[in-house]
């Protein structure tokens, strides 16, 4: 699926933001703390309703219903990863993958790719911050959805894993995917910069 997303969000935080992302493109959202990066990502995912303006999705065959686009084409990875602390890493990964449209085989592949096989039997509660983040990233890899909305995805990863994740993102883009990532440190891939601070008032 090749999507073209056209976005015009507008909130008390920022006004008149225009942003459009097309297949194969990555956007690095930057901005001071509280400038609205997380809010923008959640609005794109349809979890919060923008004060004004709207979000449109387009597929190769023209306009898509936002509901359909979101239920089949969007991965949101926020600060909270939705893992149940007392289930095993593999149980949780498998559920998230199947829920977002992947299969058991693709989950297995992603787990190998992110070096999770030896952690699969551990309870999520016992994973370290970086291990847990890798588990969350595995879902993105395992179930193909074209738009990735990432909120500070790399913070807890160590250097080696950041490089791996950079490769994964590059591969996603090469396959026609799109990425919008809120970051404070530069992304390890080429990305269009979008600074929210410029679109708003004084930083909080």
């Amino acid at each position, binding site marked *: 699926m090749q999507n073209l997303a056209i976005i015009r969000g507008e909130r008390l935080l920022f006004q008149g933001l225009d942003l459009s992302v097309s297949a194969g493109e990555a956007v690095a959202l930057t901005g001071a703390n509280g400038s609205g990066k997380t809010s923008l990502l959640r609005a794109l*995912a*349809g*979890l*919060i*309703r923008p004060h004004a303006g709207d979000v449109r999705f387009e597929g190769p065959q023209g306009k898509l219903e936002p*509901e359909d686009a*979101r*239920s*089949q084409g*969007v*991965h*949101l990875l*926020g*600060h*909270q*990863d*939705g*893992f*149940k*602390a007392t*289930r095993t890493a593999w*149980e949780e990964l498998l*559920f*998230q993958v*199947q*829920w*977002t*449209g992947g299969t058991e085989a693709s989950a297995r592949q992603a787990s190998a790719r992110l070096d999770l096989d030896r952690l699969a039997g551990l309870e999520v509660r016992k994973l370290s911050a970086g291990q847990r983040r890798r588990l969350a990233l595995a879902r993105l890899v395992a179930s193909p959805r074209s738009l990735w909305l990432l909120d500070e995805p790399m913070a807890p990863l160590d250097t080696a894993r950041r490089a791996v994740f950079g490769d994964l993102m590059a591969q996603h883009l090469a396959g026609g995917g799109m990425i919008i990532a809120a970051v404070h440190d530069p992304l390890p891939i080429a990305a269009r910069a979008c600074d929210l601070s410029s679109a708003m008032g004084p930083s909080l």
Partner: protein
Amino acid sequence: MNGFWVMLRREMAMAWGRGGGPLLALTFFVATATLLPLAVGASPARLAAVAPGSAWLALALASLLSLERLFERDYEDGTLDLLALGPVPLEAVAFAKGLAQWLTNGAPLALAAPVVAVALGAELRLVPLIFLSALIGGLGLAFTGGIGAALSLGSKRGGVLIAVLVLPLFAPPVIFGAGAIEAFAGGLDWHPALGLLAAYGLAAAALGPFAMAAACRNALS
């Protein structure tokens, strides 16, 4: 519909999962029923009179306790975000949750209800009706309870708030369920009460998911 099954399977697995699952709900049920005679005194005549009703009360309270977690955990750990972006609408998710709640808590409790009632002194001939009414009633309790659980998302005192929101919704099934048993015990016609109970359960299962989904969306935004 694949998403629905994935969801249902997960909910069932989490409820039955290691650690006992319904066993704990049953134990709570038994324990509540144990406190009752301690509180109202052990005179058998007095107990027998309130036995089936109290079993129903314990049923409602036991359901209530297990309800609190229905959405709250998912809300706090971000699962609800994920569920909102899934292949099926939140209404189906809510339905799966209610159904799983009924199957993993309501059904075992329905099995235990007659046992508890008899232990408190109910007559043996009431057993089938107590089981049936508890089973049907459980459907209503699960789905109306889910509404309360969803509405209290993000509030400070979930537990008590759920109770306050849900107890009024629990009143009709308790009335109908206990009423059917009462009628049967008194030799009256118990079908209407049971019919109302079933109607309530089905209505709750049909409408509840919409309310739950709306409440979840509201909590997320």
